[in-house]
């Protein structure tokens, strides 16, 4: 997957979790938590959804990598390159 495709997937997953959140105008480098109504359970949902879709295992120690949209894409890019 390309960086743009990964970004779209992450946004789609987030939109399912936070239906009222405005994901279009996110600051990619700022923490998602500060811009949307997300809590630690929501990040768990993202992890579980990525595992379901791409069999991707994200260890608990790596959860902080999902903090912002850019860090998500950076983290996922090498892991989803063959998808």
């Amino acid at each position: 997957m390309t960086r743009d495709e990964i970004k779209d997937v992450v946004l789609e997953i987030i939109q399912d979790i936070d239906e009222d959140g405005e994901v279009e105008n996110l600051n990619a480098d700022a923490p998602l938590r500060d811009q949307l109504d997300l809590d630690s359970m929501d990040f768990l949902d993202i992890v579980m959804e990525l595992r379901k879709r791409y069999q991707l295992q994200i260890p608990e120690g790596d959860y902080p990598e999902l903090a912002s949209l850019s860090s998500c894409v950076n983290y996922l890019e090498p892991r989803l390159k063959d998808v």
Partner: protein
Amino acid sequence: MPYKSIENAADKYDVVVIGSGLGGLTTANRLANAGHRVLLTEHHHRLGGLATWFKRRGHIFDISLHGFPHGMIKTCRKYWNRAIMDSIVQLNNIVFDNPQFTIRTTFDKVDFTSILTNRFKVARASVDDFFNTVAGMNFYDDRTMTTRELFEQFFPGRSDVHRLLMEPISYANGSNFNDPAITYGIVFSNFMNKGVFTFSGGTDKLIEMMVEELEKNGVTICTNSRAERIVIDQGRVRGVEIDGRFIETACVVSNAGILNTIDDLAGRASFSAEFLEKIKPVQVNNSSCQVYMGIREGERLNDIGDLLFTSTAPAYDVDEMLDMETRSRTFSLYYPKTRPGHDRYTVVASMNARYDDWAGLPEERYQKEKEKMIERSLVDLERYIPDIRQKCDWLEAATPKTFQRYTLHTKGTSFGTKFEGLEVSRSLFNDVKGLFHVGSVGIIMSGWLGAINYGVIVANDADAYLRS
């Protein structure tokens, strides 16, 4: 419809969930949603664990539907469905009445701030500081500070403020001044943020809607099916023996108590010496007593509040609250709005209690103590509903023995374990591959919201294992 025995289950599943408390139900639902074949077994004829109800002469009594936090709305939408979320309604009228203060509150941060500053004359800065401090607490933070020390830091010497802040939480999860401040902070900032909510339609309706969703997602449900043993071989789960039948599976999520899971279902021999050392400090929480009062058909009650925290004890006192003759109890009032269309009123008095006080009583004395407890609850309630005795046509009491009988929990605990239980619950699968636990542990994973959210966390662990 759930099967009423294990007979109809298949021979093999991806996951077997033992126990159908809100944690077990949620884990089952999440794992089915993720595409796994799930069997859910329950020893009782009814699903829900402590999220349960019973019927007597046209009355429906809810056991643990006292009020849950705002977070349930989002949690139900994400992990159950929209119809369940849409049935959640706010309880606006929470009452405290004790020798130190009598107040009415909507139980949210704004109202609490106003009460603390105007009524209790606490400086606004201290109140804000306190709220900010508890909101910033995480379960992995330092836990050497006790709740008592936390209160003394922000509200020194103010036993009235301590009572206001502690009493509802003691009823909600059995914790007290001696438990870690972080457990208090995490629960309190969830609870007192945006008010108290309930489920319109009652517990029976909620469980019915959850069963519908589980079946839609393909979960096989068997009630009256008691798991006797988790079969473990060479450090891995192989299956479960349920009423004499062996069901093959590589993954078990136990929604039994954590100590029941280790001692009764898996057996201590399945664990390493190191792990067994870790479970030594795990203490189960206290249990409860309840008195159920059914109001005669056609009678009405005035609105005296939805949830009343009452006590005639001079101050908050851990031992007093656990005593058989405690003067501290909550009254949960169920008006017809609880079950629209079912035009009835019930009242449930809840008290904290110690299993050991009740378990050893000879039968005659046990019955007598139950009657005395009913009488004390009526005397207390007469202060708010003077003619309660004339209006009641059903009175019944439950004790820690009752809780033990229906949940099978060690010492009838109604709130799982103290803090140490969380780590043990979460690390079970490091010792036995494929074995997970979900249920009330660690104080913070307690209550309806805690149990459901923990169900999601454990489903994620189990899903990771199943896909590895």
